[in-house]
């Protein structure tokens, strides 16, 4: 093979390829751009469908009633009340119970992993904890209904089979890894020099963890809480299986309640006919849910962006 042949071949091919290659170089980015735009289209799709159907809903039900009525009972058209407050209260009740479980345990785990555990222990425990986050929520729901609730009923005999406490606890368990993992990341990124400074003053490990590391990592930790709350609010199957279907404004955790997500599932399972007010109500509920979680996510992003470069 003559030395010039490769060069010649390349020349020849170039002539041939020129147009195709030029085209590919133009088409590919266009296609990729389209892929990126899909993410926006999805958001627009979500917001648009929610808004359109919600508007229809508000043409039938006044927004004042929606926001102020204390009752949610959409099932008999003639005698319906649409007070989102009772669904919100159920949702928040679950979220509060969940956070009461997840924050102390998650944070304590994070402190243990980041401040006390050796590297080896951490590398061993963290992935196992993360398995907890990967278990399908339907499994947790089943666990709540068939294990946690009966156990709680032994302690509180009056407790209804559907209640807020059991799914609240289980949602909490589900989000422990989220808080533990994100908080641990935040605490690990606190420079060691700061710990040394405190140890050098005779501080115990606990004092270093709580008085130096924790405050320094606070923004990351709070962001993890907010994200976890958002998860708890959006959680569906656990509350559907174990939480019940009676929307009410209550703080009694032994009673049955209903969350926004569980309502959507209840209606979806009944296959409510297209065009009824109930059908539109699920969009109004979903819109409320969407706004709640969106705000939470934006807050989390804001916190972690705003306070990232502290040290």
């Amino acid at each position, binding site marked *: 093979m003559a030395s010039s042949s490769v060069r010649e071949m390349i020349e020849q091919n170039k002539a041939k390829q020129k147009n195709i290659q030029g085209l590919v170089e133009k088409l590919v980015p266009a296609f990729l751009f389209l892929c990126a735009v899909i993410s926006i289209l999805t958001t627009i799709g979500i917001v648009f469908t929610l808004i359109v159907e919600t508007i229809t809903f508000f043409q039938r039900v006044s927004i004042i009633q929606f926001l102020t009525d204390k*009752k949610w*009972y959409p*099932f*008999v058209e*003639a*005698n319906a*009340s649409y007070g989102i407050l009772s669904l919100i209260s159920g949702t928040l009740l679950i979220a509060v119970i969940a956070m009461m479980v997840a924050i102390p345990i998650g944070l304590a785990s994070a402190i243990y992993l980041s401040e006390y555990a050796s590297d080896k222990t951490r590398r061993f425990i963290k992935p196992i904890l993360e398995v907890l986050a990967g278990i399908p929520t339907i499994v947790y729901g089943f666990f709540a*209904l068939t294990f946690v*609730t009966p156990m709680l*009923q032994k302690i509180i*005999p*009056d407790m*209804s*089979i*559907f209640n807020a406490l059991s799914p609240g606890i289980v949602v909490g368990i589900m989000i422990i890894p989220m808080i533990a993992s994100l908080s641990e990341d935040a605490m690990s990124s606190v420079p060691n020099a700061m710990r040394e400074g405190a140890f050098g003053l005779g501080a115990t490990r606990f004092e270093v963890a709580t008085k130096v590391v924790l405050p320094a990592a606070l923004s990351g930790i709070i962001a993890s809480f907010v994200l976890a709350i958002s998860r708890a609010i959006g959680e569906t199957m656990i509350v559907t299986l174990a939480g*019940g*279907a*009676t929307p*009410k404004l209550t703080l009694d955790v032994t009673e*049955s309640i209903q969350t926004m997500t569980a309502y959507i599932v*209840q209606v979806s*399972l*009944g*296959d*409510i*006919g*297209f065009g009824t007010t109930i059908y539109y109500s699920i969009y109004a509920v979903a819109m409320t849910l969407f706004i709640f979680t969106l705000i939470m996510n934006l807050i989390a992003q804001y916190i972690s962006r705003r306070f990232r470069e502290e040290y």
Partner: protein
Amino acid sequence: GNEEEAGETGEAGESLSGEVAIDGSSTVLPIMEALAEEYQMENPEVRVTVGGSGTGNGFDKFAAGETHFSDASRPIKEEEAAALEEAGIEYTEFTLAYDGLSVVLNPENTWVDQLTVEELNKMFAMGSEVKTWADVREGWPEEEIEFFAPGTGSGTYDYFNEEILEESGIRQDAQTSEDDNVLVTGVSGSKNGIGFFGYAYYLENQDKLKVAPIVNPDTNEAVTPDFDTIQSGEYAPLSRPLFTYAKHEALTDAAAYDYAQFVLENAGPLAEEVGYVALPEEKYQEQLDKLAEIAGE
């Protein structure tokens, strides 16, 4: 016995294929599921889907043309019939079995020995003042009752509403679900629970539930639902027939027609198996003839 019978019918429809979509009453669901299960074993190429979203919800889908059969635990309502007519859907009603709508309690409930229609009305009606058992009958404990009921899209609700509640609608704090299993779970899990649904669901869960005898307003005697009292009509006013509505257009399809035949031939024994009461044999035969007639048109 049932299975073998089913087998024979299946062989007749060998090499059939197609789709059969069924939805509607959750009361009928156990029968229909059993029928579909048996049928599918013999005819794996026919794809039968069965839903149990409630009688009313089922008719909505039926009218939307989404289903071929629509199960019902009450006769079709006028407005539903009108909607079907508007959609140009012709249909025929077939009766599958009798049901005794059962009022159930938690087994730990030792005080309720029987209930009258008035008491049921007092407890369940919209705007009811009843909070505790003591409000129902003096001497019963002052513990808060938890109510469980089928959703408003269900035929059972409609039936109960008509017969017991005098169309007043059900109290709003009742825990409702279109899935009767959820109601079973609820009543069996709550000491002060009360609920109602098709007899099959009671029978299937006898160990977890207690059924309340209902006083027959005509004889003034408390009757417990069972095969005999339901068939004889003694268990009144909560005995009722169960239906499926077939779309004529669908019956021109070989698979759907074959399935309809299978349903009428096997509904009796399978209904009894799951906990309902079969019709007299000749009633099924009559309906089979009617079916042949429709398909023959």
